[in-house]
């Protein structure tokens, strides 16, 4: 088969649904019901205006998600970096066992944890605190982060750290001057993946947050859908989808390399 045809098909498959949302978001309500007919008043920006002037305005959710994403990523890295380093310094058997356990935890469908985490949030009164979401998020991305960073530490020549020890650098100084700078590519990959997870996470945000000004983007989107399947304001929704997708599309386009290397590094090394 012709390669150009296959690539075209692939792009249509991947981007078609998104482009349809983009198209919908500019259609007037009347045009929505007749997407292929010719109508005078087809194009409009009304949906974008509605979404951005709603109460709370749409950008609010973007800011919320951004805050949660950044704080989770930071917390996750602060915990995962030392742990990933220490994982190479414990007895070999124990290290292999821990890695297996981490792989298991990473495979685990985390949605099953929602009830336990909900009770936890109730017990500690963490519900409706946006930044409190960082704890479950950092914890849920911990297995992946530790495995990826551990791979990166494994790849460093051990003499670099040995030489630094002989120069009199303490553990903290070695982290500061040698380890952190040298594994920064892996750290960047990990950070982006954790950020993506936190940005996209739904079930836990759904159960922890109910205050409409504190919703994260995924929950806000689901809420727009409302309770009825039949009366979703699709135009407004499409506009929200487009606005909500732009940051992620940019993120993927800009950080394509670290994302790909992060996702594949675990698979290729072993």
């Amino acid at each position, binding site marked *: 088969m012709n390669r150009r045809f296959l690539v075209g098909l692939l792009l249509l498959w991947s981007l078609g649904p998104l482009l349809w949302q983009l198209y919908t978001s500019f259609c007037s309500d009347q045009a929505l019901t007749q997407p292929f007919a010719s109508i005078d008043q087809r194009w409009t920006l009304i949906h974008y205006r509605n979404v951005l002037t709603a109460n709370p305005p749409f950008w609010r959710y973007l800011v919320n998600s951004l805050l949660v994403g950044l704080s989770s990523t930071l917390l996750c890295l602060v915990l995962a970096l030392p742990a990933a380093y220490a994982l190479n310094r414990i007895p070999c058997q124990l290290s292999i066992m821990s890695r297996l356990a981490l792989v298991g935890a990473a495979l685990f469908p985390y949605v099953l944890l929602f009830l336990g985490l909900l009770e936890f949030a109730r017990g500690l009164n963490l519900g409706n605190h946006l930044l409190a979401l960082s704890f479950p998020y950092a914890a849920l991305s911990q297995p992946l982060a530790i495995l990826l960073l551990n791979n990166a530490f494994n790849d460093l020549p051990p*003499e670099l750290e040995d030489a630094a020890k002989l120069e009199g650098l303490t553990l903290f100084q070695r982290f500061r001057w*040698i380890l952190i700078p040298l594994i920064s590519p892996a750290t960047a990959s990990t950070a982006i993946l954790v950020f993506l997870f936190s940005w996209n996470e739904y079930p836990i945000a759904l159960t922890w947050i109910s205050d409409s000004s504190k919703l994260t983007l995924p929950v806000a989107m689901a809420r727009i859908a409302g309770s009825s399947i039949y009366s979703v304001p699709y135009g407004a929704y499409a506009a929200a989808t487009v606005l909500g997708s732009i940051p992620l599309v940019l993120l993927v386009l800009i950080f394509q390399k670290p994302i790909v290397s992060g996702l594949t590094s675990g698979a290729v090394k072993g």
Partner: protein
Amino acid sequence: MTLQIQNLGRRVGKQWIVRHLNLQVDNSECVALVGPSGCGKSSTLRLIAGLDSVSEGEIILDQANVTHAPATQRAVGMVFQSYALLPHLSVKANLDLGLRVRGVRASERQQRIQAILDLVQLQDRSEVLPAQLSGGQRQRVALARALLRDPDVYLLDEPMSNLDAQLREELRPELRRLVLDRHKPVIYVTHDQHEAMAIADRIAVLHSGRIQQVATPADLYHRPETLFIAKFIGRPQINCFKPKDGAICAVRPESLFFANEGLPCKLISREWLGSSQLLYLDSPHGSLRLSCSTTMEIPETVHVSWHSSDEHHFDATTGRRLT
């Protein structure tokens, strides 16, 4: 300043990596550790540096017992085989890091780095990254870093094995001058016996984690304590005859000479070595190696002899030297 190692051993699991090591290295003395790969040379260095933990025995540096002191607190200057330069820092920053964490003032650091760069002749390369340096330059930076540390002992772990043969020969006297000028004990690990003989005052031969002999290069060559050393030191390799009455007789190739009477041999092949030639001979006692002057014409069959004073005798079972 002396380094003393007493009955040193390291065990991983049930396996002893090195054991029963005894060695004393004096001020301004360079001792080479040689042995086949996996014999425990580098492990010994790592124990002295404090990078691995000691299972038994003691390390005494200038009368102080440092056996269990952490690496960060030992005054040890080490040059690694891979040089271990930080790839993200310039030459200057590489050298600066250790001084800075040891709390040396900025002005003094600047001055000391400049001096050391002058010494290793890298004044104009101070701002470049290690990746932009040649192998020999990298090695000199690694050496400069060890010198800047002003340590109580120098440990050089195959510092030349990543360089090509010619450069190695050129750098040898340079290295000796730079390090031995500091009047500190030096341990030099290498798998290259020529390098060891050229650079070291004494050589310690390691085999399966044990020191077999510590001696000057000449002693090691002329009075090897074990059959292993006799075979390991000296190229072309020593000739060993078949064991007789529980003893093995060995003779160096250059000790053999042609004679009218003696072992009748047939010439198999010859190798041209420049200043000499190496002959492979077939004798009733097995094949022999003989090295002789290149001017000599060799007939198809020859008679070979040697002085009995050039014979080395070893116990056939233990490999220990007899007499």
